[in-house]
């Protein structure tokens, strides 16, 4: 099989540091001629970083790259393209006001004197289109094209540059299902003549459909390598998110009380105007944690944004303690005592350039406790901040320290302290421990369990199966905006959840 031949690309022992994160740690990756290799992993697993290194976009700190047996020093994408490596990022690099042909020719001008030789270029382009079945009018202006068509332009651009190693970063994220099928056909014909494709994705089904081989990354390291024919979505789901369970969770038996969060018939579109949530219904009661498992990108972000007041749904209703939530207005959620832990705490949740104190009072600064006639009660605010800092053991130089000086775990503690201080009725925790170390993770888990005991209802949206299993009273699985199934926390099987996560709607026998 493919393994016996000489690899087209060898990346050996690649390590890449960003300021305080190791994005790739001693990653070794081979790519063979004629294959589609999927790079699978959660967000932040280091897939895109690794490929950006191969594309010459980043320089690696350690390790070597060989392309077609030759050692390659790539200091820019230009070097990579010269060696036949092309990459299509999630955000396309097209000039919208120019035509398809002009976009494709940019940077490869082989004109006579000052003038572009568009005629020859056009002939070459049409030949490529013919061969790969990528039908697009070369004279169309890019802004008139759909996203799927723009992606075709990007592929043609790579073909025009005679790329034989094509990297695609989450190419289907922006596509409608029919467009995805077209793309897969194109990729298959692309590799027929010995070219190869690296397909970055976190969607299991896709990867199963398109790839010949799958490399799973987790936490910047390669955790597994499988031939697609010899693996299953279930195994892949476990490889992607699985982590050894380190903590011992002590969960009290509690009887769930009255419903505190009710979501009824919720429909929503994502930023590309494609359906993200389809008739979603769920109920969270007092004293219970409802865990929502699922690979990211299946509507979790849209759901949490609607709950947080950052996005309007297309249809449906949400009630908190039986009172309807006003959409598109975060203060409605605050007023109804919803604690909100957003997944991007550094961008949405916290004001990184303000002090810890200023972050802690964000939602309450206008309450009578902290101001009279618009004048802030500084003494009381300081006392309150100090109390929260010690109650949540936030490691900081003090309440006046700028928030961005805190570590990831302490940022999340600030977030929790602010949100939980008001004794919320509902807690929405979206990927609450993503990127945190084990100690911080355990702390967050304990806090969520304490809220459950106090009487809050908690919706835990998480990609981390261990977390979902450890904390949840009930587990639901979301796939393409729909609930695939529900299981009770104590006797749910990982196997069943894995199957649902991969979008297959069958029950396994217990």
């Amino acid at each position, binding site marked *: 099989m493919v393994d016996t031949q000489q690899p087209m690309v060898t990346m050996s022992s690649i390590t890449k540091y960003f*300021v305080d994160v190791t994005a790739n740690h001693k990653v070794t990756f081979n790519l063979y001629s004629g294959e589609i290799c999927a790079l699978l992993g959660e967000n932040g697993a280091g897939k895109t970083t690794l490929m950006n290194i191969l594309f010459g976009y980043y320089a690696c700190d350690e390790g070597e790259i060989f392309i077609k047996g030759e050692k390659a020093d790539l200091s820019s994408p230009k070097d990579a393209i010269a060696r036949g490596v092309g990459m299509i990022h999630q955000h396309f690099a097209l000039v919208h006001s120019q035509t398809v042909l002009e976009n494709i020719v940019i940077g490869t001008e082989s004109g006579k004197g000052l003038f572009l030789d568009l005629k020859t270029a056009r002939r070459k382009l049409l030949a490529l289109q013919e061969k790969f079945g990528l039908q697009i009018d070369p004279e169309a202006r890019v802004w008139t094209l759909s996203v799927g068509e723009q992606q075709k332009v990007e592929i043609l651009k790579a073909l025009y540059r005679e790329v034989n190693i094509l990297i695609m970063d989450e190419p289907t994220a922006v596509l409608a299902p029919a467009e995805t099928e077209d793309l897969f056909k194109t990729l298959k014909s692309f590799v027929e003549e010995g070219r190869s494709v690296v397909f970055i994705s976190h969607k299991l089904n896709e990867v199963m459909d398109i790839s010949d081989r799958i490399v799973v990354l987790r936490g910047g390291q390669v955790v597994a390598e499988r031939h697609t024919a010899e693996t299953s979505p279930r195994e892949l789901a476990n490889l992607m998110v699985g982590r050894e369970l380190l903590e011992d969770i002590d969960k009290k038996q509690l009887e769930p009380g009255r419903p505190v969060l009710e979501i009824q018939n919720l429909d929503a579109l994502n930023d590309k105007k494609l359906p993200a949530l389809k008739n979603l219904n769920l109920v969270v009661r007092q004293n219970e944690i409802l865990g929502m498992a699922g690979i990211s990108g299946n509507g979790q972000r849209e759901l949490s944004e609607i709950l*947080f*007041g*950052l996005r309007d749904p297309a249809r449906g209703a949400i009630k908190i303690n039986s009172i309807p939530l006003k959409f598109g207005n*975060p*203060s409605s959620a*605050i007023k109804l005592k919803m604690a*909100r832990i*957003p997944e991007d705490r550094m*961008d*949405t*949740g*916290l*004001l*990184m*350039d*303000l002090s810890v104190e*200023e972050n802690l009072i*964000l*939602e309450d*600064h*206008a309450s009578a406790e*902290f*101001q009279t006639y*618009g*004048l*802030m009660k*500084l003494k009381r605010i300081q006392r309150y901040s100090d109390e929260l800092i010690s109650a949540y053991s936030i490691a900081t130089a003090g309440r006046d320290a*700028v928030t961005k*000086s805190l570590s990831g775990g302490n940022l999340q503690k600030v977030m929790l302290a602010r949100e939980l201080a008001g004794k919320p009725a509902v807690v929405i925790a979206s990927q609450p421990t993503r990127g945190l170390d084990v100690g911080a993770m355990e702390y967050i888990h304990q806090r969520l369990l304490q809220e459950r005991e106090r009487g809050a209802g908690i919706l835990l949206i998480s990609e981390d199966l261990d977390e979902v299993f450890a904390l949840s009273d009930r587990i639901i699985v979301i796939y393409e905006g729909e609930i695939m199934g529900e299981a009770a926390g104590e006797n749910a099987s990982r196997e069943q959840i894995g199957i649902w996560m991969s979008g297959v709607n069958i029950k396994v026998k217990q």
Partner: protein
Amino acid sequence: MIRFRIIKRKPLPGWAKIVIPIAAILATLILSAIPILMAGGHLWKSYYYLFYGALGTRFNLLETFVKASPLLLTGLAVAFAFRAKFWNIGAEGQLLAGALAATVLGVNLGGVPQPFVLPIVIIGGFLAGGIWAAIPAILKTKLKVDDVVSTLLLNYVMIHIMGALLFGPLQQPGSSWPRSAAIIKAACYPILLPRSRFHMGILIAFFVVFVIWFINQRTTFGYRSKAVGVNIRAAHFGGINTTSVIIWTALISGGLAGLAGVGELCAIQYRLIMDISPGYGYSGIVIAMLGNLHPVGVLFSSLFFSVIIVGAQTMSRMTGVPSYIAEVIQGMSLMVMLIFLLFTEYKIKVMKK
């Protein structure tokens, strides 16, 4: 091969906030030696007369304060807006709006009891400037119109409105010049020190420094405005009504620029003319940046600017270096300050490969 990379550095200690501006001003003066020498000036003599001209005599010193007051107000106006990331490039137009309103009121308030006239004129000027700034803020928040462009272009709209009025209804009867009638005595700022132009507006400007500092540090509005400026998405997430914050910030910012216009009208010109402002609104942008958007920083940077502007007159007379050198020094000071500020957050790392 040697590569340079710009990387983030750890936050600097508090004393850096004081040392860096002083170092920046010294660096500016050193660099400014180049154009002064190129203009054929004698270096020590030029700098001596620059500072003597601004600070050396009682009259010159007071003139420096007179010049500083509009610069201080427009600087505060811009700094207050920029802090909330409302990019108000329109302080010039807002200043003119304030001067225009003060003219209309100051000429026509003859029937009002004397003690009320000046407060009405001041409030009217403040509101006119504020409303002129609120227009682009509403456009920004409701229609996502870029505030840099709209605030800038509204400057020209205001200049032409003023021109139309000065050639029309506001023109002094019997005059063929584009100038208004003089405002009544009760509408003039009192002169506070004899044999000078040291007027009440200067005290108002200094008081505003304190007011803005107080709003920024002690009020919930100042807190919200800062939060919106730092990260509007997170501020919105936290329940802050960002639209209202931006519009109120614009109102206050424009109002301060309007006060600068009132001062120029009621203490310097006493009647509206086309040249009422030599670009104080634009200088305000530079002054705000130079003062690092902090009210006390703006106070010192506006004083520095007025020293340069006033002193350059004397320097030019005594040494023959053209007074345009003042503008060169101003521009230089901003560039030096921006570079220094860059290095408070970043450092250059040399990487050998």
